């Protein structure tokens, strides 16, 4: 009973393309499953409805097949490519003919020439000794020029150093003589002015700080007085509230007591009936 045909088996059954054993299995399953039967019926109904589409009548037109096209099909991409290459080659040949292009390959060289080629000019060749002597001569002249230049720059540098040394020493000498010329009196006067100025600055500082301290202290006292006043008022309020609570409690107790007393009295006044 665990067998359940897949859609492929169902559709093959619907079109009668299942062999004996498989068909029996599907039939057994269908016999036991109402849903599967209904599904198959629905598919069958779709087939029936779609089967109403009829073929359209049509007459075959005459078909002319040109066998030559099999060998010379210009729409073939291979043939088109081959033709394009051939056309390019022909074009190249024509242009080459018109411009007189000559291509020669000899040994390791490939020559492409336009028109008639000109003979190569003979150039005088140099041997190793000649080249060596030329190089030596050039090196000697370069060395001489370098040495001369170096000498010139060294002289210029020395002259520059000497000049700057002379200038600096004269400045230092001037400063030393100026400092030595200042007298002892002038120094003491300068020191006394410095002291007086310092004294004045310290006095001003003390004065300013004492005033600030005084103001701060006064402010502190005022704040403290305010705080105390506030604290007292709060305490009074709390006390008042407590007293009120006490008063209320007292009243409540009194009322309860009165009620208890009233109930006791009323109970006591009822006569006791005895058997």
């Amino acid at each position, binding site marked *: 009973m665990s067998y359940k045909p897949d859609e492929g088996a169902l*559709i*093959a059954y619907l079109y009668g393309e299942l062999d004996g054993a498989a068909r029996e299995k599907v039939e057994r399953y269908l016999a036991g499953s109402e849903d599967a039967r209904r599904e198959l019926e629905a*598919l069958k*109904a779709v087939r*029936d409805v779609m089967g*109403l*589409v009829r073929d359209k009548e*049509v007459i*075959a037109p005459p078909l002319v097949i040109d066998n030559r096209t*099999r060998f010379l099909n210009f729409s073939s991409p291979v043939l088109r490519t081959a033709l394009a290459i051939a056309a390019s080659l022909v074009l190249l040949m024509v242009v080459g003919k018109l411009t007189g292009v000559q291509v020669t390959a000899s040994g390791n060289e490939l020559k492409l020439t336009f028109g008639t080629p000109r003979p190569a000019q003979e150039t005088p060749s140099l041997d190793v000794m000649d080249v060596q002597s030329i190089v030596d001569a050039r090196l000697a002249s370069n060395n001489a020029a370098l040495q001369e230049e170096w000498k010139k720059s060294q002289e210029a540098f020395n002259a520059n150093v000497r000049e700057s040394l002379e200038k600096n020493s004269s400045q230092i000498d001037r400063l030393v003589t100026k400092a030595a010329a200042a007298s002892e009196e002038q120094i003491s006067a300068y020191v006394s002015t410095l002291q007086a100025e310092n004294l004045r600055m310290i006095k001003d500082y003390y004065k300013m700080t004492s005033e600030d301290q005084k103001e701060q202290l006064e402010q502190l006292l005022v704040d403290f007085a305010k705080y105390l006043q506030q604290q007292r008022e709060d305490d009074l309020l709390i006390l008042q509230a407590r007293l009120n609570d006490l008063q209320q409690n007292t009243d409540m107790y009194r009322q309860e007591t009165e009620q208890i007393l009233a109930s006791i009295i009323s109970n006591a006044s009822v006569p006791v009936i005895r058997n």
Partner: protein
Amino acid sequence: MGIFKVENRARTRDLRPIMHAEILQDIAMMHSDALLERAAQGDQKAQGKLVQLWYKRIYNFGFKFFLDHDLAMEVAQKTFISMCRNLPSLQDLGKFKAWLYKIAMNYCREEARRKQNSRSTPFDRVWNLESEQSPRWETSASRIDDPDRQYQRNEIADILHTALMAINEDQRAVVIMKEYEGLKFREIAEVLNISENTVKSRMYYGLESLKRILEKKNINKDTINYEL
């Protein structure tokens, strides 16, 4: 109303034997090995006969695939040109049917791709808008029928064709080959170059899709019998 229904059923039943006879005759001729062999050897007369025999089938296959006469004609033409050229190279003549549908299917796909790529609309379709929307009684095949009934039949055929066009292209190809061309699942698998199970699965889901579409349009056997 009941009598009317019975009458209609009787009429539709009467048509079936004629159709079956035609199909049987066609099938018998289509599988004529001698004709195929002669055509494969390059006998142009045999090839012409083969084209005559199969033209209607391939045209209708294309028509149901595209719901378009011109495209169906195009596909049929190309298929038979290809058939005549390549028949000599067909190794197993027993597989001729699947081979022919494979060619037709390939051309259908090619045309579908071309149709998808081109955004132009044929001029005659723009010009003949009115005639497209008008009843198609003038193109009806049978002129001996009652025109009213013929009109209703065409209308139903249009609806069913539209339903067929509404399903997925892969499923549509399988449904047409199975339901209208009568190919075996094995042959369809060969045509489409896929497994037999995939073919059956596509057939199942194709029928399911058609069922949903027909339910939406409220079309079933009873309503069609009533209409006819």
